[in-house]
């Protein structure tokens, strides 16, 4: 009777009281019949695997239900005495032949069993495992054993975690194998004991951003698992795990905008908070203590600095091994020859600046450059000894900026001479202090140097795009477009601008649709936007800021432009490979489609014809549209004139 009461109690489902992270269903259930034991012959052992332990309510005990008719009419259950003990270890329960005979009156029937994990304290109960069965007549060998092994999805690959002091970005690659993925599990812990779990149910997702509000100071342990349909007996596979140090993020103070339309009130920004990285390494570089942060350790800055010091001593070039191998350090070429060259390319100029810098730092270094050392007075040397840290900052700039500029910018003779003169005439220390990037990017009259702030095509790595897309996705998930404020709309658009509309092809369709709706919302509410916000909208549409108002006005009475705005994001995503794809391109595409559909209407549209005057023709076109039209119209006219001239000339002969 007590057993029946217990069974009845255990079978009452109470899912409503389950924890946020439910008690996991036991893995890998199996069943076996003892066919040859002296005293255990006929015993049936049900075995299951304990969970990985990533749950708030670990099992306090396991309920084992059994039946002799596959739970059609007979349904019994017992509970073992121990709960969860060790991750992924195996537990078992034995049904003796005599016990079965007591319950069923015979041992000849097929024995069915299933297991469930229970946590009564938290009223958290897992799902039942799949059913296993065995034929185990007393004293006989088992005839068949049916064990359903838990199906496990394939591992995710290239699981990467990116932490830059704020959010933690997870990215992974996954391709479905025989077992389809049902969800991804990201477990994280700060003590490697109590774990929090994030369940990503979107199986198409390949990135996840863990918000910084979950990040503490300490060692961040994480594991990444791919899970099948756990409720139906499938299991998870641990794809990767690791740990790293994190620091609680301190949000910087930002400018607060009040009343977007009426007046903007700017609160004086407070000084930026200290960087979140904790200084943990103190290294003596060139006689000067230099401190490194955890981020420096993680990204290899310390190693590169050490390489620079070593290479400076060895070759006289304060460069990393990679730079040396790349040939950035001209080891064999004497410096005197460099300075006498008549034609100095910018690359050489920059190298000279660096080499001059290098000469003064190793006080005792006479491997390559010994002349400057003799000429520098002792007191100046003392002054320079204090510079290495400043020098390192310049070196980082060179490494990051110079290769791009050297390749792309044609330097005129005037600039070469200017830089050369500075190098010869000015004090070496002044050269050191001079921000080199400003010298090379200076907009000199009469030259063809492009301005640094000119818009360059956004070039992000796949990982960066993935991270940015994740950020967009995160914001988009929180927004309700119909109820969004102007600030929220602009925030979404700013995030989109960070990656470019065309890179949204990596986001889900839902995200693209929300972004599209946000763009339409911004155009509809353009009168409420500030100048800065209009610039953000303009950047999304790839038009000038003043064109946004024109577009907003045109949308009201021009079906083509209205449709273009509605479909802008979708078409931009479809044309990811097209460079400089703007709203004007979408307008042209839709005009073409409209023309194919109804050619007459395109040419004979007499609506509002009376409002058109010679003075205002074209005022309702965006600058971008005008430019694209010019590219077409002007060649057409010129070609027509040329052909007419050729015709007249031929007739006159």
């Amino acid at each position, binding site marked *: 009777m007590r057993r029946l009461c217990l069974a009845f109690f255990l079978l009452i489902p109470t899912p409503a009281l389950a924890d946020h992270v439910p008690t996991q269903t036991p893995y890998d259930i199996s069943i076996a019949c003892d066919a040859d034991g002296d005293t255990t012959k006929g015993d049936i052992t049900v075995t299951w695997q304990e969970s990985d332990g990533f749950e708030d309510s670990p099992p306090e005990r396991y309920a084992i239900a059994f039946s002799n008719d596959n739970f059609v009419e007979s349904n019994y259950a017992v509970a073992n005495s121990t709960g969860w003990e060790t991750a992924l270890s195996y537990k078992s329960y034995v049904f003796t032949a005599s016990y079965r005979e007591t319950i069923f009156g015979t041992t000849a029937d097929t024995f069915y069993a299933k297991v469930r994990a229970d946590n009564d304290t938290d009223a958290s109960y897992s799902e039942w495992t799949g059913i296993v069965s065995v034929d185990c007549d007393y004293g006989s060998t088992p005839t068949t054993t049916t064990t359903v092994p838990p199906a496990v999805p394939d591992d995710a690959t290239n699981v990467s975690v990116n932490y830059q002091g704020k959010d933690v970005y997870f990215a992974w690659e996954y391709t479905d194998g025989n077992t389809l993925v049902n969800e991804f599990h990201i477990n994280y812990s700060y003590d490697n004991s109590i774990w929090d779990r994030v369940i990503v149910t979107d199986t198409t997702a390949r990135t996840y951003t863990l918000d910084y509000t979950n990040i503490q100071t300490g060692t961040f342990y994480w594991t990444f698992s791919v899970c099948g349909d756990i409720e139906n007996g499938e299991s998870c596979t641990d794809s990767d795990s690791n740990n790293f140090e994190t620091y609680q993020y301190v949000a910087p103070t930002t400018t607060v905008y009040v009343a977007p339309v009426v007046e903007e009130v700017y609160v004086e920004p407070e000084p930026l908070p200290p960087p979140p990285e904790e200084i943990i390494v103190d290294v003596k570089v060139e006689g000067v203590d230099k401190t490194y942060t955890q981020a420096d350790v993680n990204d290899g800055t310390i190693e590169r600095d050490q390489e620079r010091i070593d290479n400076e001593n060895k070759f006289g070039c304060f460069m990393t091994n990679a730079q040396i191998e790349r040939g950035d350090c001209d080891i064999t070429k004497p410096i005197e020859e460099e300075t006498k060259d008549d034609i100095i390319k910018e690359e050489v100029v920059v190298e000279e600046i660096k080499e001059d810098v290098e000469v003064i730092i190793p006080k005792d270094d006479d491997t390559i450059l010994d002349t400057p050392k003799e000429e520098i007075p002792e007191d100046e040397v003392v002054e320079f000894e204090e510079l290495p840290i400043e020098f390192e900052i310049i070196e980082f700039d060179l490494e990051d900026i110079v290769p791009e500029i050297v390749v792309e910018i044609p330097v005129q003779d005037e600039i070469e001479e200017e830089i050369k003169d500075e190098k010869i005439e000015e004090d070496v220390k002044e050269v050191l202090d001079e921000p080199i990037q400003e010298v090379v990017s200076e907009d000199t009259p009469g030259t063809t140097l492009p301005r640094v702030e000119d818009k360059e095509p956004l070039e992000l790595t796949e990982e960066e795009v993935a991270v940015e897309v994740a950020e967009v996705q995160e914001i988009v998930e929180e927004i309700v477009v119909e109820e969004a404020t102007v600030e929220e709309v602009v925030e979404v658009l700013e995030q989109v601008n960070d990656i470019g509309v065309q890179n949204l092809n990596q986001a889900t369709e839902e995200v693209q649709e929300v972004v599209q709706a946000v763009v339409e919302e911004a155009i509809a509410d353009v009168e409420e936007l500030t100048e800065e916000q209009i610039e953000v909208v303009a950047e999304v549409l790839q038009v000038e800021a003043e064109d946004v108002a024109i577009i907003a006005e045109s949308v009201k009475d021009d079906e083509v432009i209205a449709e273009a705005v509605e479909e802008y994001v979708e078409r931009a995503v479809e044309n990811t490979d097209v460079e400089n794809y703007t709203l004007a391109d979408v307008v042209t595409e839709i005009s073409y489609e409209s023309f194919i559909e109804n050619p007459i209407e395109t040419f004979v549209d007499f609506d509002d014809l009376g409002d058109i005057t010679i003075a205002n023709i074209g005022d309702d076109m965006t600058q971008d*549209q005008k430019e694209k039209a010019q590219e077409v119209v002007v060649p057409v006219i010129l070609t*027509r004139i040329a052909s007419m001239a050729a015709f007249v000339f031929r007739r006159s002969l």
Partner: protein
Amino acid sequence: MIKKLWSWLVTVIKETLNLSWTLVGLVIATLTLTGSAQQVTGLATVITLAIWLLTISFRKE
């Protein structure tokens, strides 16, 4: 009368074919433009083409 009309139609088609490249350019230009500029260009193209075709005999004299 029918013969004259047929002859005129043939001439119109010939003249229009002579203008093929120009018309293609104008169509593309019209599709590239928007708003009032598109309206004016489209209308001007149609009207000019009509005048051009109606004045064939006048111009050939």
